[in-house]
């Protein structure tokens, strides 16, 4: 039976060695929605996507994806599950030895036995959806950053996945490309009936396209709500983040000793 929740994350913790990255995350992702996960650089957003995709194992808690606990799946079941999800990497991660066409065709060729004519049509349709049908002969090195991101987007929807995870899709793009990618994520999610998880620190774009937003800070969910709720939030953290203020709950300085002490002024200056 289909439930409305595609992903349920319960008390999820993860550490690299002794460094705790995530400390008990709880969140749910409803089917057919765009959910944005926001937070400062290095707060564990990308790790969260890796946990959902099963490429790393949590130290405690679990990710439940379509009724299955991800880290308990064996290798075969994990690979079967991954055929239904896909991930858009920060810089696209296009295969540099394959053309744009072959990049988009990659998964279709690997996982199906479709004849060449159908592969061709499917690939051109996906490329058309991102506006790059005419670029199918180019190599990844010939693309601009925004175009590469769009090709990667076409590749990630090649097999019509139920879930697409986007890791910082807006980083390093000019305002036009940025808004093109943002609109594509929204449009494709609605048109293909898939679910999108968007990991980003681009506040304005996320507020435009997301249905629900979670903020991660210090390894826990610091705040969450719809874009309207986020805009009107009085939480100091959300306020600092949304308005990009230097002072607030998130400190500007990395934890350190006293400034005077570090400059060896403490003893000599008196």
């Amino acid at each position, binding site marked *: 039976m289909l439930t409305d929740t595609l992903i349920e994350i319960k008390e999820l913790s993860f550490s690299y060695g002794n460094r705790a990255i995530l400390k008990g995350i709880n969140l749910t992702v409803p089917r057919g929605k765009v959910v944005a996960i926001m937070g400062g650089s290095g707060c564990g957003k990308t790790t969260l996507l890796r946990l959902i995709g099963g490429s790393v194992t949590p130290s405690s808690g679990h990710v439940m994806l379509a009724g299955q606990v991800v880290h308990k799946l064996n290798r075969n079941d994990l690979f079967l599950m*991954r*055929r239904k*999800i896909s991930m858009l*990497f920060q*810089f696209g*991660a296009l295969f540099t030895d394959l053309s744009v066409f072959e990049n988009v065709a*990659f998964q279709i060729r*690997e*996982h199906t036995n479709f004849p060449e004519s159908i592969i061709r049509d499917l690939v051109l349709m996906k490329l058309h959806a991102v506006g790059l049908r005419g670029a199918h002969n180019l190599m990844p090195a010939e693309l601009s950053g925004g175009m590469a991101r769009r090709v990667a987007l076409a590749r990630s929807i090649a097999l019509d996945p139920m879930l697409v995870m986007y890791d910082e899709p807006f980083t390093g793009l000019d305002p036009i490309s940025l808004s093109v990618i943002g609109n594509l994520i929204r449009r494709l999610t609605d048109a293909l009936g898939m679910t999108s998880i968007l990991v980003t620190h681009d506040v304005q774009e996320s507020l435009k396209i997301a249905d629900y937003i979670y903020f991660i800070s210090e390894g826990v969910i610091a705040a969450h709500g719809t874009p309207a709720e986020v805009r009107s939030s009085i939480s100091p953290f959300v306020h600092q983040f949304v308005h990009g203020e230097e002072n607030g709950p998130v400190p500007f300085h990395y934890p350190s000793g006293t400034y005077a002490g570090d400059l060896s002024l403490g003893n000599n200056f008196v």
Partner: protein
Amino acid sequence: MIESIFRLGRASRFFLLLLLKSGMSLRRFDLVIRELYFTGVLSLIIILISGLFVGMVLGLQGYETLQKYGAESAIGALVALSLVRELGPVVAALLFASRAGSAITAEIGLMKTTEQLEAMGMMAVDPIARVVAPRFWAGVISMPFLAAIFSAVGVFGGYLVAVVIVGVDDGSFWSQMQSMVDFRYDIVNGIIKSCIFGVAVTAVAVFEGYDAVPTAQGVSGATTRTVVTSSLVILGLDFILTSFMFRGVS
């Protein structure tokens, strides 16, 4: 020290996985053929030119020494034996390690750095089966052919110097070679050597690439290690193999 043992463990595990996941390379042999072009065909130029010069130097040096004993007609045998037993497999493998081995490491290492391997894994395609295994088998297949070509061109180089330039008798050059070189004992052993070197070089190259630290510095370090490690492995293995293969029986 502990880190080296760790690495050795990782390398063994990786090699085992590589063998277990080689099924796809056999089923989809076109993936191997594509890599054969990059590792084998593109190494041909350096192998041909080096083979020619090594053979020519052998011809010169051999003639210098042999003529002191009036044995210059044995130059054909000397050139051929040196090449098929030792120089062919060893020098071709050293060249292969620096030409193709380093390229394999750099390519796989960069694919890891640019998240291509992880992206492949997220698409439910195993990078060891899809990226590593075809490169490995292409290297293993190329090596004996490259060594054989190296030896053949080397013999031709020796012929050029000894017969065409210096003027050793044509007939005795070839007939001495024919009578002294044994197919089973010399040529087959040389081929076995080059097959083993092929496995060693390519295994080191793919492992170093796959295990590279995903940064620019990490990939450059891995590429250097491929050339250094596989060269040392080739020379070490060559000593061991020679001591088993050629024990003065003839």
